[in-house]
């Protein structure tokens, strides 16, 4: 099995971590898991859309979709049917090939992220020994699709949005990658499954500041509030996908929510202990954590206003980047000089450090206004 795998894909494919009762053979594993993954991705994306709408409804003192099926469960189905039978419009002066390719370029890299995410011990498509590097690399490709969409649509809103997304995502890649290095230093491995196995204490405790940086940078990566500049409804209407309709728009929409699933899954794996947890089966733990992360993302979306583009860039370069560097330095010192110390002491150290640093940094960003008096 392993030799067959190696002969075709030069990947580091460990048969030993597969569940023992798994059907033998590289290709059967590949095909079965790809199908499972696709079904999982589609179901999760649809579930996320439904959950987001329902939860947003609760936050906004309204009910949310509740007409179709019990609790409105079939609302996403109805929406999908509606969106798929819409006319596919290509603007007259659009760059037709780019316009056609853009949704695929945006969607495929997001799906590729799931290849290395472990759903339980070893249950991943491949357990790459450079898993996290692969994720960081692949996840930034989907930006190209958005830029292609913005450029090829021949629409100024879309163009402004494309320019915004380049600036934003490229900036936030850096703190994101630096935050991940902190994890890698502690875990001593780049493999996603290895990182989960190394977490005796969830890394959110060992790396509180890294978690904060990663979470905020990830919000910017998936263009969620308060960094949802590229589809700022009030400013540039819908952003890069303004000229898309029908199934192409559906792909963009799916890509957006799949990205949200992916980011929730990555955060779960890196910081929340992945599939680890007592009593319940590992897959269930994994899903619970993914939904919990997504809930926080919705919570933020329903509460905060949007930042301006210069503020977004400033936040990345002036706030997140220095914090990420400090975090990396501190983590490096802890790993090199204090390898034998109890991890709980490092937890306390890092939480205190994160609190102090975030407090100090936020002081310099403070613009809190004095109340105007009623006189």
């Amino acid at each position, binding site marked *: 099995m392993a030799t067959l795998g190696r002969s075709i894909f030069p990947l580091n494919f460990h048969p030993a971590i597969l569940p023992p009762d798994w059907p033998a053979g590289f290709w059967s594993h590949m095909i079965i898991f790809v199908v499972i993954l696709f079904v999982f991705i589609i179901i999760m994306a649809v579930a996320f859309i439904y959950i987001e709408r329902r939860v947003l409804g609760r936050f906004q003192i*309204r009910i949310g979709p509740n007409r179709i099926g019990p609790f409105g469960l079939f609302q996403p189905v109805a929406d999908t049917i509606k969106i798929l039978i819409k006319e596919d419009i290509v603007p007259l002066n659009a760059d037709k090939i780019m316009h056609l390719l853009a949704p695929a370029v945006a969607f495929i890299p997001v799906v590729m992220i799931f290849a290395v995410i472990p759903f339980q011990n070893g249950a991943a498509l491949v357990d790459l020994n450079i898993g996290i590097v692969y994720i960081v690399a692949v996840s930034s490709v989907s930006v190209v699709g958005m830029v292609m969409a913005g450029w090829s649509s021949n629409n100024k809103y879309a163009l402004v949005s494309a320019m915004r997304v380049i600036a934003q995502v490229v900036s936030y890649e850096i703190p994101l990658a630096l935050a991940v290095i902190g994890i890698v230093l502690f875990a001593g491995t780049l493999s996603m499954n290895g990182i989960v196995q190394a977490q005796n204490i969830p890394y959110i405790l060992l790396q509180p500041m890294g978690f904060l940086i990663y979470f905020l940078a990830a919000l910017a990566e998936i263009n969620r509030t308060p960094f949802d500049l590229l589809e700022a409804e009030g400013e540039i209407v819908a952003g890069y996908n303004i000229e898309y309709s029908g199934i192409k728009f559906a792909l963009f929409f799916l890509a957006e929510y799949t990205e949200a699933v992916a980011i929730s899954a990555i955060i779960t794996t890196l910081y929340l202990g992945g599939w680890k947890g007592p009593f319940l089966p590992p897959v269930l733990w994994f899903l619970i954590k993914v939904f919990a992360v997504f809930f926080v993302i919705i919570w933020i979306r329903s*509460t905060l206003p949007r930042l301006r*583009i210069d503020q977004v860039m400033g936040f990345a370069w002036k706030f997140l980047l220095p914090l990420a560097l400090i975090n990396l330095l501190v983590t490096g010192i802890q790993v090199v000089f204090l390898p034998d110390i109890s991890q709980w002491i490092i937890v306390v150290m890092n939480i205190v450090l994160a609190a102090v640093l975030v407090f100090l940094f936020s002081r310099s960003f403070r613009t809190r*206004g004095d109340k105007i008096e*009623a006189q």
Partner: protein
Amino acid sequence: MALKTETFILNAGPQHPSTHGVFRMRMTLDGEVIQDVEPVFGYLHRGVEKLAEGLAYPQDIVFTDRLDYLASMTNNQAYVVAVEKLAGIQAPERAEYLRVIMAELMRISSHLMAVGFLLNDLGAFMTPLLYMYREREKILDLFDMVCGQRLTYNYMRIGGVSQDIPEEFIPALNKFIDSLPGFIKEYDQLLATNEILLVRTKNVGILSKESAINYSTAGPVLRASGVKWDIRKADPYSVYNRFNFEIPTGTKGDVYDRYRVRIEEMIQSSSIIKQAIAQLPSGEIQTKIPRILRPPKGEVYGHIEGPKGEIGFYLVSDGSANPYRWHMRPPSLINLTALREMLIGVKIADAMAIFGSIDICVGEVDR
């Protein structure tokens, strides 16, 4: 090496999520920065002023409902104040008090919408807006109780109001007014301490005191720039000289000040309503006016302080039953004239915030 850049024109509107109706801005952009902006309006022009000249004075009250549809009561009031001034009619005291209560409720409702939509433009996805709707809904229920309408009230009459308040109105009103400060406080804590809101609104869209006066702006836009000008105090109409209230003003004239002034004004309005309930006299709600009102020849300008600024009506009578000239001073339109000065040099995102902070209603801009 300096890169060659080119400006381009971005057309926002007439169909755009942030233009609050069918308003259009032709923006010349250098990247994200606005170089020039040309406001275009008139998409909702219905010729109300001309229509009104063809109908009798009482019939024109209906048109005022359709101007600023988020503040119909105060439009009604401005018009009847002008007609009463023209014809020399004095409304009974109880009617004046009812008008004050309705006008202040309308002010709260309009400010709720203004603040809610401003935050929506800032990107707070619907949540603040829907919380504002929750409170506005209570006000609309109160109006529904009084006149059976929720949007176009047609409540004020020349020389009075259309009907007296029902028994259950005052308890319901008291309940609402008591709950309002708590709501505003809750809301303010959520937002006014929010760092993102502060960086987005502070020092953005500054309108200097001089400019604000020169553009003839009124209402919260003027007061946020630090000018203490309120028709309720400067030229008291109705029974406003009997109430104790403050005029909140801003210091800088930025978006944040406009936001704060509106929040403070809601508190002041609720205090006025409280006093009005306490003083509410009994008696008639309508004076006798002739079946066909023919005001004497002459012209008159009657104005009140509406939620968005000074609403004025300029009426010319030729002695017949129809007005010879029926002209309105629309606060939305006149506040909008200051838009261009505030927009030049800011980014697109701020443009929407500034535009939202002016709080226009296109029904009133275009008439």
